[in-house]
Every structure is written in C-alpha cells, then in structure tokens.
C-alpha cells in the first residue's frame, strides 16, 4: 500500500466516523459527506470513495441479518430471527430474505462477519471434509 492510498484510507475512515450517529449510519450524514466530497474533491477520490463504501457497507451489514433459504421463508420467521439477533447483539437488527436453492434445505443467516449455518449443503460439505 502506497503512502497515498494510506492517506486516502485515513480520510475515508474519518468520513465514516462522521457518518455514524448514535451508533448507526445516518443517511443524512452520508448524503452530506458525499456532497462535501463532490464540492471539495480530496486527493485520490476514487480510493477514498471505495474505502468509504467498504466501511459503510460493513457497518450496515452489522445491523442486517441476511437470511438465505432454499424453501419458503415466512414473514414470521424473518421477524423471529430479527428479534433473536437484536437480543444477541444488543443493537437493532433487521432481517432480509434472500432465496438460495443451493442450500438444499435449511437456513444460512449472516449478520456482519458472523454466519449461522444450519443448511443441508453446509452439513454435506462438513461431511465431505471430515476424516
């Protein structure tokens, strides 16, 4: 990593900190930051924006449970997952549904970097790698 991209990442991190309000990403602040970048273009704007995007995406993912499922996922199930994750992480977590037939059966829930796996595909994969 060059000194330039290091500096750009530092700027992106600063923008990210300014985008968070009350522990959550504020859409208004993000809009404000983007407008600021538009007006006062920083050095290496592409690197700054990419890093900023990555940081915001990671932060948003922490408050979102992506529920992958092969069959049907009723609204009640999504609601219960959201409640369970909110309790577990002690922060508001919303659940969104994403159909994935490759799972064969079961669920795969991702919240930030954590993945909760209870799908048949994952078990078959575990079995295939077991000694």
């Amino acid at each position, binding site marked *: *990593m060059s000194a330039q991209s290091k500096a750009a990442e530092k700027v992106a*991190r600063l923008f990210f900190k300014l985008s968070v309000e009350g522990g959550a990403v504020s859409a208004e602040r993000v809009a404000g930051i983007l407008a600021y970048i538009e007006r006062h273009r920083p050095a290496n704007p592409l690197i700054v924006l990419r890093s900023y995007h*990555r*940081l915001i995406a*990671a932060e948003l993912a922490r408050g979102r449970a992506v529920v992958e499922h092969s069959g049907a996922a009723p609204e009640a199930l999504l609601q219960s997952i959201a409640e369970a994750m909110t309790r577990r992480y002690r922060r508001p977590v919303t659940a969104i549904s994403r159909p994935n037939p490759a799972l064969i059966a079961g*669920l795969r*829930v*991702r919240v*930030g*970097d*954590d*993945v*909760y*796996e*209870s799908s048949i595909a*994952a078990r078959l994969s575990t079995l295939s*790698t077991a000694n």
Partner: protein
Amino acid sequence: MSSVLEQIEQQIAQLSTKAVRKNVGTIRTIADGVAKVDGLSDVMYNEMVQFPGDAIGIALNLEEDEVGCVILGDIAKLKEGDEVTTTGKLLSVPVGKGLLGRAVDSLGRPLDGKGPINSTEAYPVEKIAPGIVVRKPVTQALFTGIMAIDSMIPIGRGQRELIIGDRGTGKTTIAIDTIINQARINKVGLASGDPKFRPVYSIYVAIGQKNSNIVRTMSALEAAGALEFTIIVVAAAADNPANQYVAPYAGAAIGEWFMDNGMDALIVYDDLSKHAVAYRQISLILKRPSGREAYPGDVFYLHSRLLERAARLDGKGSLTALPIIETLAGDVSAYIPTNVISITDGQIFLETDLFNQGVRPAVSVGLSVSRVGSAAQIKATKQVAGKLKGELAQFRELAAFAQFGSDLDPKTKAQLDRGSRIVELFKQPALNPIPIELQVATLWAMQKGYYDELDLKRVTAAAVSLREHFSTRHDALLSKIRTKASLDAELEAGLKAACDEWKSTFAA
C-alpha cells in the same frame, strides 16, 4: 415417564440441528502467499483460518479494518472475494512417537508416502518457553561423536549450541553426525537393558533447503540406522515462506512433547538464516516496518522465543537445540549471526580456510565456545582433554608467528609439533561419529605421547588404527570407561597395556 424421555429426545434433536456459528471474511487482496482479508472481526492473533480448497492461513496482522494472513498451502486457486472462516484454533501439529522415522511438513502432514501419521495428540506450534522455576541446569552430556567438539566444546542436554560458518564448511554434517551418534547410543543403551538409560530422539528441521539435499540427509540417516529415532520436518526452498516460517516452531512443538513426557530430544534447525529471510519476506509483504538489512523489528524475538523453548526441565526431560546459521565470507558480526550468538549457550564456528586445508571438521577452536557444556562433560574426557583447547589455541597463535621466522627455540618447536599432532588427531571423516569411550582412549594415548614418534602424516591413520584395536580387542575396557565415566588407576593401567600392545603392532 415417556414424556420425560420425549423431552430429552427433543433436547437432543434441538442440539443436533443447532446452527453452527462461524466468523467469516472475504479476501480483499492476495499476493506472495499473504492475503488481506476484510471481516474476520472475531479472529485471534495467530489463529488458524480456513481458506477455500483446504488452504490454511494464520492471522498475523490484526488491523483496524482488515486482517493480514499468511497462507500455508496451495494459493493458486484462491481469488479476491473468496470466503475465509475462523477456526477458533491456534496452529497445532501432531506429536508423539508415531512421528519417529517420518518426514512431515510444517503442519505435521506426511511427505514420505508411508501412510498417515499414527498420532492422537497435537501441540500448539507457538508456545511460551518454560520459565525459570521449572528449569534445571545443564549437567548431562549429549555426545556428538565428533572428537573436537566432545573434548573441547562439550554440549549438554537442554543446551542451545549454535553451529555457524560459511556455506560448504560442514555445518549440516556436524548436525547429522550428532543425530547418528544419538541413534547409535540409543541402540547400545536400549540393548543393555539399563533402566536408567534415557534415549535421545532427534528432530531435523530443514528450512529453505533444496529437496535434493533433504533426500541426501534422509538417505544418510537411513543408511546409518538413525531414521527410526529421527523426525524430519521439511519446509523446502520451493515451499512458500509461510511454511518456512512455521517449520521450526512445528519442530519445537514436536520436541516439546518428548521433553514434557520425561524424554530427551535433540532438535536441529537447518538453517535459521533462511528462516529469517522467509520471515523478512512475509513481514515486507505485510507492510511491517523494516529495520536493519530490511529485517523487521521483531526478528530477534523470532529466534529468541524459538530457542528459549529448548530447556532441561525439573522432573521431566530435555530439549537440546542445535541451530545452524550460514555466514557470508566468515562475517559473524552480521545482524542475524550476532542475534543468534547472543541467544545461544555457545557456538561451534567452522572456518572455510581450515576446511580447504583438509582440517575436517573445520572447527575454529579460538572462536568456538560452550558456555554451559563443561558442567555436562564426563570426568574421563576432562581428564584427558582438559588442556587441549588452550594448547590448540596457543598452537594456532604460534603457527601464525612461525610463518615469519625460521629460527625457533626448541620449546616453540615442541609446541608446534604437538599442536600439529592434535590437529591431525581431530580429523574425522563425515558421518562417522566416534563413541565417547574411544575418544577417551584416543586422547589418553595423545596425552601419554603415543603419537609423538610417528610421522605427522601418519597420526590420523594411527588414531584410526588405535580405535580399531580397542574396538576389536578391548571391548570390556571400553565398557568400563563408558560406565565409570572417569579414569582411575585400574583403567589407566588397562589403557596403558592396550596402547603398548597396539604400538608394537602398529609400528610393525
């Protein structure tokens, strides 16, 4: 009652369908065996992480929003965006006697095609070295079978003795000779049925070596019957630097198992110069700040934490380390050599000039030292070789002066003559360790002037002949020297009679 059973069954069913939690990340960049990973927010320092396609990584750099991992294994199939998973485990290797006679990689996986490793236990590769309370002083000898070393630079069990020298000066040969000698002693000791006998198991760690050299070493060990007491850990030159970085720690973990279970082990790190180079490569790719010779700031700790794991433990066994360092143009004041010299308990310095003059092993007596080994030297060796180091050092000094003038007084001439004979006496072919009792007999004969009348060129042959004479005709006397480990009047009389007998036959 059935409802109770149903409840338990339900509980089991719940447990068996419980979701598995994993902490994941994605590869952002990958280059030269090092991956920068986004995510992995729960990863521990030095934790094993799982890459796709059975590749294992170690988390070495935990940064604010990314993790730097070195990858052990095939990186060809990895790409940006691949998922990486934490394992919750520190890097560990299989340990135990099941590894004896095997060649394994830095993760303990077999490389010799002899089937799976028979091991039920695993040890973490990185471990804090034993503290001062559990350690014992080095007092038991570890014989290398090399007369110049056992008599002048003795090594004890639990010691760290550096073997240092330029390329092609016989560093690996000394290590291999020592391993072969341990196997020979083990065989004799185990056959004797002595309950107090403690065998020494050997671990040879090849770091950044050519595969052809490793095969040659293995063949030499096998031919000498030493492979059954030896474990070979291989991180060859073609392996990625991460494997080369981990290999000595894996070897140390394997050795620690023997030490923890009341056994003695010897570990050879061949060599730590290449290990430092591999670590420098990893550190530079991880963007760690570089210092002298572009090595990272913690290169001293890299070797100190490794070598500190060699110890003699109270109530347990020992781990003796023989690290090897390759110098450039005999420069012992370079960065890595000085580091390792300061960590170890002494060094055996091998000189290119001596090697080229035919003095093999090319041990430089002046620069070699064993800081703790003299306490471990047996009394018999002390009796016959106590003054040898001083005499030889004096000889080297006088020999240097003698080059400039031809008029020498008789005393100096005598000293030079004796020194030359000692040098000849210490010449020893490779892969041919000499049992300690034969070393004592050879040196006793030297001390008593049995080689003084011989032509200088015949001294080496005479010593070989004397040892043959003792081995074939005076086995009982040799056994006594071995068991008593010191020379009394009776043994000296026996030695004199045997030497007189030999002298008459050799002169004839």
